């Protein structure tokens, strides 16, 4: 890279005499101003919509703020309350989130990989159609949550699931699926799995197509005897970057989920907190109780959680050193 610049750049002449003195930071930025121009759109939106809000949220988490009067500084009190007094958080939100995230995250992730691999085995002509069919739920999920699923799980006899089970004789009476805390979480998990084939899935599918065919031939010669070995020893190492991307997306996606419970229950709070996730808890405090400082503190905790989980994914799939 640098060699090319030196030979090709018209400034090469003038740059040479300065070489002994290392230029200052600002000067170097100025020198590479065109590159900064290129990343500007991302940096500006990132700072504006991610970095600043996150910093503000962290700041706000040390205040008590009710959306109307001036925020009041209260130090660590919010965090203290979360960890010592918030029964709903400890009793429902945390266990529910973990249960949900552990099943939907890795579950959806493995499912994505498995389906991507499966589709990859198909002839090219039909592959795109299957891809579309599997990817579509994650696109349409918002609408589908609101329209399709409540109908399927409707509590009267006309609900699809009830109707089917009744006609098969599995149940004798309609079940109030979306009101019964026993089923609520399971339904949430099921639907989320259905909708989890998102960008991660696409990335893995794309990754699979980049794997060099010769690798497999070489593998076969070197003694790989079945498909499973092929996957473990060749495919997965070959598409590690895509696997990482998929993992991060899955982790962040599941921890961020929360909307689904509210949609299924038709109210911001799920029946007996059975589907109460951290995000719902944040919503509850921010929009219903107007305790924005407390909600900010909760979001900070969630952010830490996401950060930790992402780090863990890097541990699993990241490039150790420069491979």
């Amino acid at each position, binding site marked *: 890279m640098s060699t090319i610049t030196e030979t090709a750049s018209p400034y090469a002449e003038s740059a040479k005499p300065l070489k002994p003195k290392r230029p200052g930071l600002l000067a170097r930025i100025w020198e590479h101003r065109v590159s900064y121009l290129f990343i500007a759109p991302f940096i500006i939106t990132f700072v504006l919509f991610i970095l600043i809000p996150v910093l503000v949220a962290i700041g706000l988490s040390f205040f008590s703020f009710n959306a*109307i009067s001036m925020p009041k500084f209260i130090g660590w009190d919010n965090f203290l309350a979360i960890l010592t007094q918030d029964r709903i958080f400890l009793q429902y939100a945390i266990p529910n989130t973990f249960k949900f995230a552990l099943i939907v995250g890795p579950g959806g992730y493995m499912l994505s990989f498995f389906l991507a691999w499966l589709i990859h085995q198909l002839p090219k002509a039909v592959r795109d159609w299957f891809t579309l069919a599997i990817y579509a739920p994650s696109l349409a999920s918002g609408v589908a949550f609101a329209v399709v699923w409540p109908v399927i799980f409707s509590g009267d006899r006309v609900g699809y699931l009830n109707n089917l089970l009744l006609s098969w004789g599995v149940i004798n009476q309609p079940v109030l699926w979306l009101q019964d805390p026993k089923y609520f979480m399971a339904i949430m998990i099921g639907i989320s799995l259905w909708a989890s084939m998102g960008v991660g899935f696409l990335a893995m599918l794309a990754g699979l197509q980049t794997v060099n065919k010769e690798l497999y031939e070489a593998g076969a010669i070197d003694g790989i005897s079945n498909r499973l070995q092929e996957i473990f020893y060749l495919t997965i190492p070959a598409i590690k970057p895509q696997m990482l991307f998929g993992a991060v997306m899955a982790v962040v996606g599941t921890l961020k989920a929360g909307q689904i419970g509210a949609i299924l229950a038709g109210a911001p709070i799920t029946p007996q907190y059975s589907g109460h996730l951290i995000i719902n808890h944040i919503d509850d405090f921010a929009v219903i109780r107007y305790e924005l400082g407390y909600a900010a503190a909760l979001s900070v905790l969630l952010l830490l959680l996401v950060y930790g989980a992402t780090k863990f994914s890097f541990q699993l799939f990241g490039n150790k050193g420069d491979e």
Partner: protein
Amino acid sequence: MLRRVRATVALIVTVSLILLAVGPAAASDGGGEAGATAQGTEVTEAGRIDGAPNAGKREQSSYRQTMKQFESKLQPASPELPDIAAQGSAYAAVSDPALFERSGEEVLWNSDRGWAEWNVTVPEDGLYEIGIVYDSANDFAVDIVRGVQIDGAYPFQEAERIRLKRAYSHDPYPPERDDFGNDRRPQSQEVKGWKNELLADYDVNEGPLRWPFTKGEHTIRLVAENQPMKIKQIYVSAPKPPPSYAEASAQNGGGTAQEAAAGKEEPWITVIEAEKISRKSDASIQLQSSDYPLISPETDGLIRYNSLGGEQFRQSGQWAEWEFEVPKDGVYQIGFKYLQTYLNNFSAYRTISIDGAPLYRDMEQVAFPYDTSWRNLTLSDSSGEAMSLPLAKGKHTLRMTATAAPIKPVYDGILRSMDRLSALESAIRKVTGNFDKSFTDNGNIDLNRDWELDKYMPDLADRMNVIIDELTALSDLLGTLSTGGKSDVENALRIAADDLADMRDHPRDIPNELGKFSKMQSSLSTWLFRMLDQPVLFDYLYVAEPGADIPRATANFFESLGHSIVSFFRTFTIDYDFRRKEPGAIDVWVNRGRDYVNLIQQLADETFTPETGITVNVNIVPDPQMFILGNAAGIQPDVALGIDSAMPADFAMRGALLDLSSFADYGEVAGKFHPGALRVFHYDRGDYALPEIQGFNVLAYRTDIMEQLGLTPPETWDDMYGMLSTLQQNGYDFYLPPKDYMTFLFQNGAELYTEDGLKSALDSEKAYQGFRQLTEMFTLYQLPRDVPSFFNHFRLGDMPIGIIDFNSYLQTEFAAPEIAGKWAIAPLPGIRSADGVVERWSGGAMQAGVIFKNTDKRDDAWQFLKWWTSEATQARFGTDIEAIFGPEYRWNTANMKAFTRLPWPAEDLKVIQEQRKWFKEAPQVPGGYFTSRQLEFAWNKAVVEKKNVREALEQAVIDTNREMYRKQIEFGLREKKGTVLHQLDVPNVTEPWDGEESP
């Protein structure tokens, strides 16, 4: 054991066989009254409106059937016969002379009850038409409805409710413009004056109805159903049906067309804008602003009322009139530019009459076929050739009436099938002894037992075949009416027929899938809902000499493209926010639709500003969250309207609102509102809002079904338990909104919070009683727990009684014409107190107006809020909004006096007023949102998980208290350690209040 079961079954079977032998419908007779069997066969034949399992024993036959009956016996009277008239004041008898007031030849019938009779002497046997010269007697924007009896009996079912339309015109017209250059929707002003109409029902027949008379003296009795009226004359006249165009032109020697074609000058044409009506029958027939290429006139990107109708011109019997003038005697062609994208693959129908009557039979059912773009339709005869209509020089009136007559046979057929289905269902239920329809559709039945149903009901297959055949035939009939392509209804009918055929072939399975019947019925009924609607949107009419160039209706590609491009560039030049920003004015943010907001602005400009000199900017807030976000950003209005009931207290706790009780005349102003409503806006010795609208809960019931079951609406819940067994035994249900806990808590004398507002009061014994009563409704008494649409069940009749709120009331009143007059409302059942008064406490949704604390125009804002909630303004707003948009926009104002000035049906108003006396909503305290959440959890535990009721409630109390405690610390009512620093005051309301004397 087994033997006893067999014996019982045998007994049931024998009984049902006997009943079956008498007539199919007799089996559907739940009570088993012997008198009912006589009409047995009649019932299934009659096009019954209600699809209830065993409704209506003494049903009338429909108009069509009656006419068929008379077809051979009675001829239409000969057209030469003169009219036989009776003066309005010359009535022969009335129900109660006090209701009638004669003056000259007219009579004022100042009531919507009672009846009046006139005598007429008919010269010869035959079918006649009845005409009436009438006028309205008040300004309510709803139809006048009368039943018509001949010699003391309704000759057919439709005679029970004959609608007499009022007439309206637009005022002002052309419409005024607002500050942004948009048209302001003109009001519909009723036009008084005698109206001479032949009695008609455009649902069943596009012409006037015909009435059978024999030679001699007869009485015609009008029975009041709705609205007072004035009557000048009633007359019986011989039908004068128009000739068909083919006949008429044959008589004229077919010369008309050539005559015109021979004209030497340019053929004459005039275009009449559809929006420029001279009269219309309903306030709800609306002007529309349509932005399409080639529309006339252009909208220029603003709101320009340039078309008429659409969804707002769809009910049969609604009409609109236009005036036009032709330059000379001659023949003319008449046509319309229309858009009918509403009825997928169907036509919408209109009857066109000119100067009072259709000229030819071909104008009685003019079909406007489905099309996705604007089309021209010139009135044509059956062969598709444009009709040349002879018109004399001068002014003419064209009236267009929506008619559903062509589709009505299908509608009736579906109803008939639904009736048969339910009769069949209840017959099967009698055999199997399974009457439990409440929640579990298979109910108390043993699923593993099977029935040789075809043995017990030998005619089972035949009865099912009748229904299958009918459904298939209807579907075929629809196929012929369609404009190409299969319609959704057609498919639905076929699916139902297939399902039935499947059941017929497997009769053994039927008893275990009885739910299929109600499923079929409900799917059929969803199609019924809008089947009779006939929406069409009109741009203009044209009257032209044959051969004239008719302006093109459908835009070509380039015109459409050009239109889109111009619209796009307009978004740069027009500020579509339409925010009014007059400096120095008070800012009012309203969380309602544009229509409401515009009217508020208009009223304020008209009466408030001239009176007080205060200018007002009324603007829309689409999302209530904006108040919070705006607050955080420091953008605040002075006054906000349309605020939900929890928000004022929430904002007040945080110090964002002005305490209205700080104004000296607050007491006087608040005296117009119910204390049970005001207490919602009370927080810590301050009052922060005035209610604008206030809902109510009432008990709605089907009079026909209740009467037949011998039931009366329950006064108390104990009465309701008493009637429940009768209802459920007959396969009916009672509807109770599942989570309406407040009604039961308040009626049992419980309160939600202690007097100091610091603790939940649900740990009282009374609260436990109330909550247990609510949960037992769904456990012990098995009321349905999940009813997505009570409205549909109510129309269908399988839930003939239930509790509805204001919106469902309006829906039932205006969207269910087929049960009009067959239902009534009553106050909620209550609990009888020690001194014998039935306490009916219940709540209702509210919206309120508030003033923000940061306003620098406190007094102006208060003046505005006072003006807005005053009796005069609220009554005016209520009537105006109905005049503009129709009676569906009923304004349920919270102002108790203004409420009575709106056009409620007199009977209903009495009931609603009685119920509103007992209005009580939940007070708001910090952390109060946990009460409803925890009660819902408790309901869930008690009903769904069948846990102990008391435990569930106690957990709710503990959790609620915990949250309240936390919130009290936040708001400084408690110290961190828990010592109470400050006590709140929660107003209690224990006495009903009718708005007369101040509390």
